[in-house]
């Protein structure tokens, strides 16, 4: 089934199994030997994503929330094709760009400037485009003289600013963002939101994983609540946040108790 005219991304029944090996055969010799033993190849199966279906339209911002281990990052990585899925179907229209992890795709030995060139190439920009946008990227990242130092000397916040600066200059059709917005300081966060909205106006669809409920409520058109790999709720931000918050409160209560008991 091909996408309807306004859709850019559709997930249908996506499952992803994760195998936790007791002792995974990492060598050809081991695999061979284990095969002959009765119970050599033993692993636990764990479903990181279960029957996830989702549709994204042009220029839509969809947030994904959920507890730790609910499969949010896995979902983004499966859409980005970094991880394979076990069952299901993903249909994509256009270019997918990602902003996952800190220092997404940075080589530590290279300087910030060189990494911009490399990341531009990774994200599909041509050399001319990168040269054109270089100054604008450097200005947004606001790293000062550090732009010419090796990236391994950067702090987490600097990584984030640089990664984000590059990502917003790529004309992607779909941008996947994984919890990195929480890492920057407040002035940076104030810079981010207008940029995300600008991208939406240009027609880029955003899929954002975030724990920050205010962020989800303010800019997302829809929010998805993922719980242990399953989609527990999809809807407008206010609806989903209302359903999601009680479970947050419970976890907070439990951890507070854990802190208080001697």
């Amino acid at each position, binding site marked *: 089934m091909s996408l309807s005219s306004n859709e850019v991304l559709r997930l249908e029944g996506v499952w992803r199994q994760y195998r936790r090996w007791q002792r995974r055969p*990492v060598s050809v010799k081991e695999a061979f030997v284990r095969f002959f033993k009765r119970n050599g190849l033993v692993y636990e199966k764990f479903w990181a994503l279960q029957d996830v279906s989702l549709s994204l339209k042009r220029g839509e911002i969809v947030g994904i929330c959920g507890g730790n281990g609910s499969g949010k990052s896995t979902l983004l990585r499966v859409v980005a094709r970094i991880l394979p*899925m076990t*069952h299901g179907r993903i249909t994509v229209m256009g270019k997918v760009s990602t902003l996952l992890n800190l220092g997404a795709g940075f080589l530590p030995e290279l300087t910030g400037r060189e990494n911009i*060139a490399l990341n531009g*190439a990774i*994200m599909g920009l041509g050399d001319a485009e990168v040269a054109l946008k270089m100054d604008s990227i450097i200005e947004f990242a606001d790293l000062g003289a550090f732009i010419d130092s090796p990236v391994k000397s950067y702090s987490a916040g600097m990584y984030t600013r640089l990664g984000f600066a590059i990502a917003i200059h790529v004309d992607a059709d779909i941008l996947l963002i994984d919890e990195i917005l929480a890492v920057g300081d407040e002035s940076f966060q104030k810079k981010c939101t207008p940029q995300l909205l600008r991208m939406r106006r240009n027609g880029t669809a955003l899929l954002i994983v975030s724990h920050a409920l205010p962020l989800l409520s303010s800019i997302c058109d829809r929010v998805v609540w993922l719980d242990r790999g399953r989609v527990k709720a999809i809807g407008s931000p206010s609806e989903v946040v209302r359903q999601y918050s009680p479970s947050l409160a419970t976890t907070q209560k439990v951890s507070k108790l854990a802190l208080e008991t001697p």
Partner: protein
Amino acid sequence: MINRILQDVDLKESLFDPVYHIEGETDVRGEWYRTANLIKHLTWRNLAMRYRGSALGFAWSLLNPAFLLATYTFTFHFIFRVTPAGVPFPVFLLTGILAWNFLSVATMSAGASLVDGANLINKAAFPRIALPISAGLSSGLNYVAALPLLIIFSSLFGVAPTQYLLLLPFVVLLLLLMAIAIGLLLAGVMPLFSDLQHLIEVLFPMWFFLTPVVYPISMVPDKALFWYQLNPMVGIMQFVHAVFLGQPLPGASLVIAVGELVCLLCFGLWIFNRLSIHCCEV
């Protein structure tokens, strides 16, 4: 039985049932351009990182061939009396060694590319085939950079370049494609089995001796020639000798070699496409 083991190590699902399928209207020409541009950047980065911070830089990569040249000349020419027709042994040897080193380094680095580039793969989405190809290309550029020195070395020994030298681009192309074909195959499997590296490091020297690098093919007994020529590097190495040393162009062995190369390339591409998506799981 085989099914069970393949399934348990994920190979079956990957090789025979494509479980992953992304479709959409893609700008094919744009994708090719993007991949080529990425390969260019990665190749450049490979070379820059290899030689950055090393004072002698390029000279180091010549050290290994120089060492082998001295040792093998002593062993095979002085002791074993190997004498290629019409060409001084050191020239014959160096031509073969440079070509073989290119193949071996390119294949190993292409094979290890998904493992070495894991931090890049885990964090960004890009066509993974760019990694082994750029690894092969950087070795290729190293080889091409060493060729003028080879020509100078040859002329010092009185071997003048012939018109066969015009076929030089094909030499580089054949060696590169061979390295990429095997490299793709290895790159797919290497993340799953980490000791494959050691296995390959044992097999390569064996293959070296089954190829006419330290001896001319004329020394191979006729009885063995049929099986010997099934080695794809035999035809390619003879081609190398023809281009640089004016030896006669190979016929059947080169045809066999190219045929096998095409098969290997297709197989390598298939394996790589099926398995590369799984490299992050381990």
